[in-house]
């Protein structure tokens, strides 16, 4: 249990020690080696890198260097990432065996390890983090602490104004003022639907009940999206603090974080953070001596996409099958265990403390007229800089894909960007200049969604992408309502036949009709939005559908049943690389002479296409 005075003392003392994290001119002999310990870098052995650094430092008796595990830096494509501060040197693709060289050359001798320095898309060597084009157009609010602090050390969070917002609301603001501040800021739900957060809190506040709840929705099921996970892994306290603030605002004293069990690192960080906050008296009884009581518990999900829908999530916390409830009543009226409940997404909550501290006007000055603040996107797919980006609302898709994302690899063309996951749509090149906000995206047939942004190049077949999403929806449909349970299955069957060249123009019409009906008649958001990938691709890429149903042709050369892989005899130099890489030995030919693919053996895995140095291999319609 700590008093506010003690918290302030920790804040000042730790902040001094951490100045070198944010100030490249910091006057210190100390150095901090920051190693990304998010899921992406962990998969490529960053824990081993941390271990090696610590071992070498101890062996050499170096005392002025600390090794810190941080959350995601964002540029996952360059992982594992090591950053040395205060000079801000950015080392990319570091391997555990590189640690010794970094310590010897960088720390001991004071020189940079040239070969490990990060290179930008144009090949220029980047000396400092902020020189990277990837970071130039970003604005970090929700991700402010990610990659700066050690998420498992509450003192570091406190050093960067942690728990100041909670103290401010508890001692200086009434609950009405808190809600008014959030309403004025213009913050809208970042889970996808974009409901105004202040309004949601207000509805729960005016309910009279002995017990109310705050629920944090961390059931990030959208495939290819990892914003919420990165926030929980990199800055868990910001979510816990915001939940306490929300609790104060609506009059709740219990919060639940519903998080996917598939996110072990995030779960563990959250547990650590909750325990630390309890120890410091920032959760529990009588917080800051104000009489306000609030606690947070974790509830694990078990792999059901539909549980991201708020009422299904509540059912799941109650220990049942995660089937959505019919609304109304809305959760603010009758939610968890029948009590008024506010459900906020992780990213929404991560914005709260900054709004309280910097004011509603500051926040509403960022973004567009109806969409304020920033949005975090998980940029993935066929784009150079795969990673996590946070941009002000109103940034165009082109800026995200080309300026921040660095464009499309292998000299290919941009074909579409997919936002909103299985509930969203594909945006074609002609809409690249659309500013990203809730309204513009839904106008062009997609949606903001939780923030997955997948870029696709010209080799992707849009019919197959629609099939992919429907396959997802079918396996994730909870089965409660008929349109979603049966309708999506029929849609998937039609799309599968199209990809196999067994469909007809009549079926195409049926597909469209089905899609519109399912959209209108499903109970929950999952079913209502499930046809979106089909409808948006039908809108922008109808020619491709017509090709499939009328001519059994896939112009992208993707659908296996409709294409063969062939070698261009003119371009083939006979280097034999394709044959060496072919897993089924379907390619033969003498070195120096054009090679050939045996179509009866070929499994169409496309490995040869990606390996050919002369771009001599391509797909061809049968």
């Amino acid at each position, binding site marked *: 249990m700590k008093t506010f005075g003690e918290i302030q003392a920790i804040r000042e003392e730790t902040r001094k020690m951490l100045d070198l994290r944010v100030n490249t001119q910091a006057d210190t002999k100390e150095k901090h080696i920051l190693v990304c310990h998010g899921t992406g870098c962990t998969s490529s052995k960053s824990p081993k890198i941390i271990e090696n650094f610590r071992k070498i430092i101890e062996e050499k008796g170096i005392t002025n260097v600390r090794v810190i595990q941080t959350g995601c830096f964002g540029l996952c494509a360059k992982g594992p990432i090591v950053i040395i501060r205060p000079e801000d040197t950015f080392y990319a693709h570091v391997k555990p065996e590189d640690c010794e060289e970094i310590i010897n050359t960088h720390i001991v001798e004071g020189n940079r390890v040239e070969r490990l320095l990060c290179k930008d898309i144009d090949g220029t060597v980047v000396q400092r983090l902020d020189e990277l084009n990837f970071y130039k157009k970003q604005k970090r609010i929700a991700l402010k602490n990610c990659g700066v602090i050690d998420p498992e050390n509450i003192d570091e969070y406190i050093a960067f104004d942690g728990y100041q917002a909670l103290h401010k609301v508890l001692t200086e603001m009434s609950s009405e003022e808190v809600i008014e501040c959030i309403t004025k800021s213009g913050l809208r739900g970042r889970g996808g639907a974009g409901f105004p957060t202040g309004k949601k809190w207000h509805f729960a506040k005016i309910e009279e009940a002995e017990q109310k709840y705050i629920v944090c929705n961390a059931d990030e099921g959208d*495939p290819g999206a990892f914003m919420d996970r990165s926030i929980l892994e990199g800055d868990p306290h910001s979510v816990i603090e915001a939940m306490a603030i929300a609790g104060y605002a609506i009059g709740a004293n219990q919060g639940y974080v519903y998080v996917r069990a598939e996110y072990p690192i995030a779960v563990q960080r959250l547990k650590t953070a909750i325990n630390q906050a309890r120890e410091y008296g920032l959760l529990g009884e009588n917080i800051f001596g104000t009489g306000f009581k609030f606690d947070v518990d974790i509830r694990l999900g078990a792999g059901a996409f539909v549980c991201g829908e708020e009422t299904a999530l509540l059912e799941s916390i109650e220990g049942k099958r995660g089937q959505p409830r019919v609304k109304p009543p809305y959760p603010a009226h009758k939610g968890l265990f029948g009590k008024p409940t506010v459900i906020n997404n992780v990213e929404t909550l991560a914005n709260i403390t900054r709004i309280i501290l910097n004011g509603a006007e500051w926040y509403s000055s960022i973004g567009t007229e109806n969409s304020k603040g920033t949005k975090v996107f998980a940029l993935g797919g066929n784009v150079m800089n795969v990673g996590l980006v946070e941009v002000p609302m109103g940034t165009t898709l082109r800026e995200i894909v080309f300026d921040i994302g660095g464009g499309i690899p292998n000299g290919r063309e941009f074909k579409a960007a997919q936002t909103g996951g299985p509930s969203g749509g594909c945006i074609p090149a002609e809409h690249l200049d659309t500013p990203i906000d809730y309204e513009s995206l839904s106008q062009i047939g997609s949606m903001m969604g939780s923030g997955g942004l997948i870029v696709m190049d010209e080799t992707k077949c849009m019919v197959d992408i629609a099939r992919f999403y429907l396959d997802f929806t079918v396996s994730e449909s909870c089965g409660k309502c008929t349109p979603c349970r049966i309708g999506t299955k029929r849609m998937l069957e039609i799309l599968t036949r199209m990809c196999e060249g067994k469909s007809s123009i009549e079926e195409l019409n049926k597909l469209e009709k089905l899609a519109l009906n399912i959209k209108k008649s499903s109970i929950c958001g999952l079913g209502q939005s499930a046809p979106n990938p089909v409808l948006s691709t039908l809108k922008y890429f109808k020619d491709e559908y017509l090709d499939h149903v009328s001519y059994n042709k896939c112009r992208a050369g993707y659908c296996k049943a409709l294409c063969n892989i062939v070698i261009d005899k003119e371009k083939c130099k006979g280097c034999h690389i394709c044959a060496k890489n072919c897993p089924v030995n379907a390619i033969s030919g003498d070195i120096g002479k054009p090679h050939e693919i045996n179509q009866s053996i070929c499994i169409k895995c496309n490995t040869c296409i990606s390996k050919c140095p002369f771009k001599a291999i391509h797909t061809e319609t049968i």
Partner: protein
Amino acid sequence: MEEEKNCVEKRLTKEMDEILNKYPRQKDSLIAILNEIQEKYGYIPKQCQMEISNYLNMPMAEIYGVITFYSRFTTSPKGKYNIAVCLGTACFVKGSQSILDRLKERLQISGGETTKDGKFSIDEVRCVGACGLAPVFMVNDEVYGNATVKMVDEVLDKLEKVEM
């Protein structure tokens, strides 16, 4: 044989008691209990379901309904090497379907199934969060990034040689 079976049952009952006693006898404990059992045994044996049913005073059918609803829970054991192929969108557009197809072809099983000898099983998972390394597959906890069909073959060749 009979004796051995009794012995296993007894052990399971004892371990189950330890797990169950950690949780309050409320319906909302169910998913947490199932998560712990799944983690510990790799699946949820029928005997455990019966013990939970007694403990929470819930019908077996309801428990079974919950187990089958969530993809994380399984009622049959996974293989010694559980190979999970990421079918998240980022991996999919980078060719994870070919990886999955090859695995199915080599092992002659579908997603969610286990080979007869109990050595391999295939899981189709949605986003393991390593989108920077797409396409990705995992063998138990080890992640294989920037995967190719050839890599699948190499990994399988290696594992097939390992004695059970």
